């Protein structure tokens, strides 16, 4: 390396080291959502687990809209026909305000199910993002009609599921160009079999008190229909306590794999065998337990490459004193527990995390880790002094593979649950919306900085239209196109890269169809739509 190159590198390091993500709470007019979980003295477990948030551009106007999942009324029939308990869709207006379009969009009256999470993607490849809502009870698939309205197509699609669903996500596991649907389910629990736990203070029961259930996999058959392939795919072989789900191709074989965050038991890593079946390999891969061999309360999950080595890593949020788990992908199908070596353990040991994302908030070229936080027990202070129920969200800046605390000034302590990521104001810096149990969501706008960026909106042709499952490289950074991950939430499908000082980047896209596309010297600071070659 010549002298000039060394000087440039040092300058870039100084520049990027000085950066710190600047997320600030915003109160956008019109966003008046209030989550209602209806806490009761009976401490029904569902009360403390919801609800999700999605960032999607449902009307293709180039602005991200916000969908929030509500809880329901307890005890009783949940009464979600009443407006205070509806899920809500807020359309973003050009001036950054929001308009509640729930009723106009046909999303009013959420039925008689207690709401949990949301998945968002274009399952029918018509160019409009659809919604799948998970519940305690029947789930709901809303097809986006393309005219600002949605239609409940659950029955025709055959994806109602049942029981207690948590996170869900769309992905194309067989690369046939149609998005399939994975649904995590939590516990074998119902209101009638609720038990009171804890003395002298009643508390929500630990998951060990209830049996587990299987996750579900639905294959998209086309024509608006799905087929339940839970059993034949091998997903149904395992009973778990699933809360979070994320997809990525951890072994680079071209097929999307599935990580399920389980609560209080070993985690699941379903390896896609490329023939329509999955094999659970968490233990062999080294992602089932913490470094001590202890199970932890897996809640949210991010499946992305935090150290720019081209291999996706896994971050799982869990309960206070467990330390968020970070598994570094070592290659060869193996992971290494990296919470200690990256500094994340010490930063998170006192916190409980839910929604989580690995996103480059300061555009320095390294993905930072964001977590929505709060303990699961609303009276944890009485039970274990030193722990807290309400917590502010946390942002851990990635300093070349090592995480550091990043101050998020002025954020309130809340019962954070879901977290969705995307660039709400299209300024090139990633924003976040955190859903809050029993409260209004937190909208965190990124004030930006001097670094450059590039955002890509993929349009699949041979692949699924959202390009979900595509691997995108910009410089030494890799991203995986997905709307899934986090907890109960769905994020913007667009791919975002922080470029630091670079004003352009060469982009390489490996589409799920197998097509490789290279875009030379793409100018920075732009949102670029990339269509898959036919």
């Amino acid at each position, binding site marked *: 390396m010549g002298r000039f190159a060394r000087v440039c590198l040092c300058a870039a390091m100084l520049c990027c080291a000085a950066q710190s993500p600047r997320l600030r709470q915003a109160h956008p007019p019109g966003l008046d959502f209030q989550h209602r979980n209806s806490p009761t003295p009976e401490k029904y477990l569902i009360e403390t687990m919801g609800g999700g948030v999605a960032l999607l551009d449902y009307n293709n106007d180039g602005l991200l809209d916000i969908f929030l999942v509500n809880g329901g009324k307890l005890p009783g029939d949940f009464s979600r026909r009443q407006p205070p308990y509806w899920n809500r869709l807020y359309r973003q207006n050009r001036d950054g305000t929001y308009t509640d379009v729930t009723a106009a969009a046909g999303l009013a009256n959420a039925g008689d199910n207690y709401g949990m999470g949301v998945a968002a993607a274009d399952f029918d490849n018509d160019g409009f993002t659809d919604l799948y809502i998970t519940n305690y009870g029947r789930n709901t698939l809303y097809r986006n009609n393309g005219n600002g309205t949605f239609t409940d197509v659950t029955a025709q699609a055959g994806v109602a599921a049942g029981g207690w669903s948590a996170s869900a996500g769309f992905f194309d596991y067989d690369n046939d160009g149609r998005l399939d649907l994975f649904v995590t389910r939590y516990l074998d629990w119902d209101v009638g079999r609720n038990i009171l736990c804890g003395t002298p203070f009643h508390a929500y029961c630990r998951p060990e008190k209830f049996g587990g259930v299987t996750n579900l996999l639905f294959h998209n058959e086309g024509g608006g229909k799905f087929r339940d392939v839970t059993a034949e795919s091998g997903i149904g072989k395992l009973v778990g306590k699933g809360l979070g789900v994320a997809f990525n191709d951890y072994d680079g074989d071209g097929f999307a794999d599935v990580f399920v965050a389980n609560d209080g038991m070993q985690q699941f890593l379903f390896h896609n065998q490329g023939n329509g079946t999955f094999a659970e390999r968490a233990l062999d891969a080294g992602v089932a337990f913490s470094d001590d061999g202890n199970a932890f309360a897996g809640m949210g999950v991010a499946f992305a490459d935090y150290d720019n080595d081209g291999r996706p890593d896994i971050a799982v949020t869990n309960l206070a004193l467990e330390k968020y788990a970070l598994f570094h992908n070592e290659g060869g199908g193996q992971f290494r527990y990296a919470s200690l070596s990256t500094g994340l353990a*010490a930063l998170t*040991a006192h916190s409980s995390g839910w929604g989580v994302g690995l996103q480059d908030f300061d555009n320095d070229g390294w993905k930072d880790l964001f977590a929505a936080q709060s303990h699961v027990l609303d009276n944890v202070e009485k039970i*274990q002094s030193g722990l807290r129920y309400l917590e502010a969200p946390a942002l851990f800046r990635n300093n070349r593979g090592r995480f550091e605390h990043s101050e998020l000034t002025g954020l309130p302590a809340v019962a954070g649950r879901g977290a969705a990521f995307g660039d709400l104001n299209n300024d090139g810096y990633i924003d976040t919306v955190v859903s809050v149990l029993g409260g209004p969501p937190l909208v965190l706008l990124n004030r930006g900085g001097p670094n450059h960026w590039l955002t890509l909106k993929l349009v699949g042709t041979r692949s699924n239209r959202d390009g979900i499952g595509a691997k995108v490289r910009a410089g030494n950074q890799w991203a995986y196109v997905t709307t899934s991950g986090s907890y109960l939430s769905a994020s913007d499908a667009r791919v975002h890269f922080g470029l630091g000082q670079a004003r352009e980047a060469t982009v390489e896209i490996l589409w799920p169809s197998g097509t490789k596309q290279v875009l030379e010297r793409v100018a920075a600071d732009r949102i670029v739509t990339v269509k898959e070659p036919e």
Partner: protein
Amino acid sequence: MTLALLLFLALQVSPELKQHVEAGLAAKRAGDLPGAVREFRRAAELAPDLAAAHVNLGAVYLEQKDYGAAIPEFRRGLQLQPDLPGAEGMLGIALLAQGYAGEAVQHLEKAGAEDALAVALLQSGRAREALDKLEAALQNRPDDPDLLFYLGQAHAQLAKQAFEMLAQHHPESARARQTRGEAHAAAGDREAAARDFAAALAARPDLRGVHLAMGELDLGSGDFEGAEREFRQEARLSPGDALAAYKLGLVLLNRGRTAEALPELQRADALRPGMPETLLELAKAKATAGDPAGAEKLFRQVIEQEKTTKLAQSAHFQLAQIYRKLGRAAEAAREMDLFQELRKR
């Protein structure tokens, strides 16, 4: 047996008495305790001044755990014949069972029933004397659960007495605040504990053990930064304390500072060799630092010592990771099987 002989000596004068006594003994041998009571009670009615008759009846009541009925019979027997063998001991045991520990002491002393006497002494607040007797008894029966239980109680009583005296005579002393802090910490009141510990240190900054306790509080709430600060202070005050070195090493390891953790854990192991918790963390540190052979040796040591505990389980798991990384698949699989086996227990 002695009592039966004495009875037979007395029975020479009364065939009816003899008949009831023999029937009572037979019933007792057959396990028919109500029958034995019936016969001995009749014998006591026929010969109310015969001490052995009362004591025999009391002995059956004792066997029935009807201590309230046994006590008057023993008392009557001893009144009639103060040197009646066995009666003092049985009365002492019955009184102890009814909670009259103070009164039981004198009877048990006379009977020379050392084990029961130790318990009676303990329950009548004479923990120091009880301790000596319990320790003597443990020489003969080192694994006796009752003896171990009472020994623990005796130590606890003595400790309580000492702490009460401390609180009474020096309520604001550093040691009193330290003690109160530890009590609050044990009760889960972190804030009160921290207040007392801070007051103790303000009074005596060189007090050993307080920083360790404060570090534990921080560790318990996931505050590794605070824990490191406290454990470091403790290690400075007590450089020869293995526990302080171990805790400091543990926190440093959790903070991702392996190079600093290693010497602390090695120091802990040198100060108190073979402590399995230290060995486990030291092994983890070595594995993280790229010394799989060193780590393997230590994990093996943990397994050797711990066999089936949680520590052994963790060692098997971590060994499996090391073998996997080294490409020793068969050994990795074996260790993972052992880990799974222990997990299921």
